[in-house]
């Protein structure tokens, strides 16, 4: 079975641009969460979607948005990129809530120049 897949794996953008990151969860998983991990730190929660509805939002500006599609895949969008948005963006899928084990993709390394 395929694990969580994220695309692209690496991305370089210029300040002010927009970026879309994509995630496909494990088959049968209905929950997708997004995390941002800055170098040397632990992952920080951005969003959780369950059954296509937003169930949680972390302390991130409105420039960050996400959605979940009928097939449970998800997109994370970031507008007006800042240098500080450079990070590894991780997608995690789980069967339900964060109370169960999360399965992470390999991440998208975003560099903003």
């Amino acid at each position, binding site marked *: 079975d395929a694990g969580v897949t994220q695309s692209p794996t690496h991305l370089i953008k210029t300040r002010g641009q927009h970026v879309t990151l994509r995630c496909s969860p494990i088959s049968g998983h209905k929950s997708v*969460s997004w995390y941002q991990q800055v170098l040397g730190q*632990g992952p920080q*929660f951005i969003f959780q979607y369950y059954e296509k509805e937003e169930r*949680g939002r972390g302390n991130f500006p409105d420039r960050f948005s996400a959605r979940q599609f009928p097939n449970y895949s998800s997109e994370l969008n970031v507008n007006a990129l800042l240098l500080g948005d450079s990070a590894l963006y991780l997608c995690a899928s789980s069967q*339900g*809530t*964060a109370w169960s*084990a999360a*399965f*992470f993709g390999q991440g998208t390394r975003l560099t903003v120049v």
Partner: protein
Amino acid sequence: SQQGEEDPQALSIQEGENATMNCSYKTSINNLQWYRQNSGRGLVHLILIRSNEREKHSGRLRVTLDTSKKSSSLLITASRAADTASYFCATPETSGSRLTFGEGTQLTVNP
């Protein structure tokens, strides 16, 4: 706010030795989870211990949980060079919407 904090931040040992990492958290939890991350890649779930459990084993991993002290420890026995990675503890919020991670322990196992 940071829920989990790992200690030590970095640990370097020789192959065959045991490695112990500690995690402290601040609020009541449903469970506590440990994850491993190899060099900037995705996280891999290692073990989940529920709040009513005190100890759990999985292969060379042993996790303990002390809810009175709000702390957990991860023990890796007979370490191998392949165990070199960052290890994070994570706790789910009561709502179940998110995991809150600590800063991690960077483990280096020297051959």
